[in-house]
Every structure is written in structure tokens, then in C-alpha cells.
């Protein structure tokens, strides 16, 4: 979860989104991605030493949110990337 200061800064930058709405979205994403984060954290604790696992924690939170959002899309059968263009 970002600090109050960071959220205020984002509110200033975004201008049109009320702080309460930002916080609601952030909380929703955090709660929804919690299970993904638990799995990632368990893997990290298994394979990294304590300090490295701790250091990776903020990055794992970002990763978990991204993975949760991606998991809600269903690619079509023809979406089989391998070649670029």
C-alpha cells in the first residue's frame, strides 16, 4: 500500500480522480491480488535467503497485482505469439 503522501501526489497529478476513489481502487486491487502475492512470497522464501526475500517484497507486490489483472483476460485460440511481425 502506498503512503498517504504518495496518494496525495497522485491525486494532484491526476487531478480528476478523487482521493477516495483512488484508495478504493488500490484497496480492491490489493485484496484481489492477495492470494497471488502469498504464492509468490512463499516461492521467494523457499529459494532466497531472508534478506533477499525481504528486499524483493515490494517488487513482488507489484508483480502480484500485474499477474492478477492479466489472469482475467482470456486470449483467443489464434493468439499464439512466437514470431514477432
Amino acid at each position, binding site marked *: 500500500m502506498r503512503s498517504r503522501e504518495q496518494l496525495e501526489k497522485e491525486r494532484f497529478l491526476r487531478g480528476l480522480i478523487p482521493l477516495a476513489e483512488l484508495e478504493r481502487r488500490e484497496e480492491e486491487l490489493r485484496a484481489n491480488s492477495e492470494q497471488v502475492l502469498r504464492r509468490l512470497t512463499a516461492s521467494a522464501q523457499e529459494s532466497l535467503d531472508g534478506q533477499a526475500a525481504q528486499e524483493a517484497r515490494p517488487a513482488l507486490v507489484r508483480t502480484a497485482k500485474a499477474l*492478477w489483472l492479466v489472469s482475467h483476460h482470456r486470449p483467443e485460440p489464434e493468439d499464439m505469439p512466437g514470431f514477432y511481425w
Partner: protein
Amino acid sequence: MGTSVDPCSLTVARAVAEIRQGRLSPVSLAQALLQRIDRLEPQLHAWVTVDRELVLEQAHESLRKLERGEKAGPLHGVPIGVKDVFYTEGMRTTAGSAYYADFVPTHDSAAVARLKRAGAIILGKTVTSEFASAPWPNGQPKTRNAWRHEHTPGGSSMGSAVAVAARMCPAALGNQMGGSTLRPAAYNGVAAMKPTFGLISKYGVFPCSWSIDTVGIFARTVEDLAMLVLAMAGHDPLDPTSAQRPVEDYVSAVHHPKERPRIGLVRQFFFERSDQEVRKHTEDVAERFARAGATVEEATLPVSLDDVFAVHTTISQSEMSAYHEELVQDHPEAISPDLRASLRAGMFITAVKYLQAQRVRRRFRAQMEALASRFDVLLTPTTPSPAPRDLTTTGDPVFQNTWTNLGFPTVTLPSGLSKSGMPLGVQLISPPFTDAALFSVASWCEGVLQVWLVPPLVGANPDDAPKR
């Protein structure tokens, strides 16, 4: 040989013309730029390496070729800055990493080789953040914004953006995995282009994320951007992501501006995340385009950009972690803590999730292409705000991530100054492989805007409005 104008203020096109017509010596041009670097580098810190002897040797060789009557390439005698992630034969290439502090490649990257073949002189290597990703190497701010030193210069191609803005070189190379070219360009008041993914070879460029990374170009005019893209574009069998498409004449496209273009103004998301001044400025720019004959309509995004970012994060983190796996395992101390944490986190993304993100990206690309194809270009602000007064950040790449991730070509044009006197820019976007058409519209927009920004430390110069 002699020219009445300050050589440092010349655009690439003008410098080439002056050199060809014998009014400017490549040696005089190189010397003038080196003197400019001597004067401003202590304040700006835009360069990692400038090899004066090598630069002057190249300039003398360019002059000798002219004197011998040899055919001059399209960039003959023009010094170019190169971001320090491009391999340069015999010249140190650090990628902003302590681990590669003494790395001297034995061959050129394809982009550099093609610039040299076109006659360009490599002026030196410009500052990048660590592996063109983390905000600052070891948390130490280095490069300064060309307009105000206490504002961020952007990143990760900050050295190239600042060098072009400060007239230390007329053009420079960068690259972009998120917003690493267009964002610093806008923060420093210069133009930039990120071509379609695969148009320019990435062979010999330190990768961030090989299925997203694109070579970028900084210059002060759209014509100069087109000249460099034309010199570097084309298939390269050494880069597996290189496109096998014919190269178009981008310079000719600039010389034939697209009249009355159809412009899709994207307010959704981009205006929500911009500050009030940027929103109003972008509306004003759109209004100017409309008054000049463009058709400006609202463009509605077909996909959630938060989801596009999630795909971007999943792919880029996976690829970066794969590329740096050995370094993370064997020499973790050589990587700064934030980047090391991100690389370690990426190692826990499964192959299935990575591939699903690639598949979803393909779908997003098709949907966004359908939208972009309804217009000649999409128009957005380049950044949510002018360069933040905060040296601990390189700013927010949120307005570039989508287009970089989906492979679309984009251009940023300087479009004015904020009330506080910092540069503002607008971003133009078109579908993949419509780079020539994008240049044509960008040329028209540049002609309507007529904005040429000169940082106060450079000093006003009547020659700064480029002449064609």
C-alpha cells in the same frame, strides 16, 4: 570554409547542407560541439564518454573524403550522441552499470554501424540509468534537466535528451522499453521518435525487454528525426525481432506534410492522469490543429490501460530477469537494490503467466490498431505534468507504456512552456508500420505549432528556429 551561424544551433539537415556546400567544415562543427560540451557538461552531466581525439580524427576523415570528392552519405560529418547502452567498437559501453564500467565492445551495434555508414560521427556516449531501467545508478542523481537543474531530466535516455536540448549535439540515440525516449524529450523541450517495434535493429544494444525495446531518436526537428530513422531502418538478420518490411522514404514524408489530418484526441485516461495545466494545454493544441484544418475527434480507448500496463509489467519483468539471471546469481552486489529486487521478483513469474501476457498483448494490439486506424494519428499529452521538481524520480512513463508495449510508432513534439517555464509536449501515435505517414502528420503539426524551445543556459539565438 566559414558559416555565419553558430554551428551548435544547426539542425542535422542544415549541417549536412552546409557541409556539402563547403560552407562548414566537419572539423569546425565537431570543435564547436566539443567546446559547447566543455562549457555546459560540468553543470549538466549528460555524457559518460567523450573521446575528443577520436571525434576530431573522424571529423578530419570526413573532411578528407569531401576534399577527395568521395560520395558523402546522408549524415556526412554530423556528430551524433549515443546512449551508453549501444555497443560502440573501441569505445566504453557501461549500460549505466558498475559491472560493465570497463566494458569495451569489439564491434558496433547495428544502429551505430548504420549511422557511421551514413557518414555520421559518433560524438560520445550519453548517460543512462542502470541497464536503462532503474531510476539512478546507486541512487545518485547525475544528469540535470537542461532547463532547471532541480527538476528531473527524465529517463532512462536522460543524457541524450539533455545533450540535444543544450545544443551539445544536433541529434542523439536513445531506446525505450517504457517511456525512456519520449518522456525525457518532453521534459527537456526537444522532439523524439520511437519507431514501430522491429523497424530498427536492436543488435548490439543492452536489452531491457527484447520483445518491447525499441531504438529511439532525439532531435530538434521532425526532419532530423526522419533522417536518422531512414539511415538506420531496415531488416537485420542479426536481430530476430527485426521486421522484414520495405523501408519507406521518411524524409520525403516530412517534405510532404499531411494536410487536414484526422486527429483522434484521447482524453480518456490521459486527461484523468494529467494536471490541470497539461489538460488545458493539450486542448489548446488540439484547437490550434483544428483551426489550421485538421479534423479533431474524440477517440475512445477499446481496452483498459491499467490492464495493458499489467501485461507490460509481466512481460518486461520476465524478460529482464531472464537476461540478468546470471548476474543476479553471481554478482548481486553489482546491481543496485531496487533493480535487484525487481529482477528477483521477476524470477517467480511462471512461463505460463508470461506466455498468457504475450497472448493478451496480441489481442490488445489488434484492438488498439482498430482504433488508431480510424485516424491519421492519435493525440495525447506526452507527460502528465512538466518535469517534476524531484531528482529522486525520472518521472512517470504512464503515457508511453501502452504504445511501446504494443509496438506502435510515436512522436513527441515540443508544444510550449508551462506557467513555471518548463517545457510541455504532445504525443502523436499511429498504427504499426505507418511510420512514414506519422512523419508526414508530425511535420504538419510542427508547422502549425512553430515551437522551438531553447533552454536559458544556452542563450537565445536567432538561428534556433530551424530553416528548411
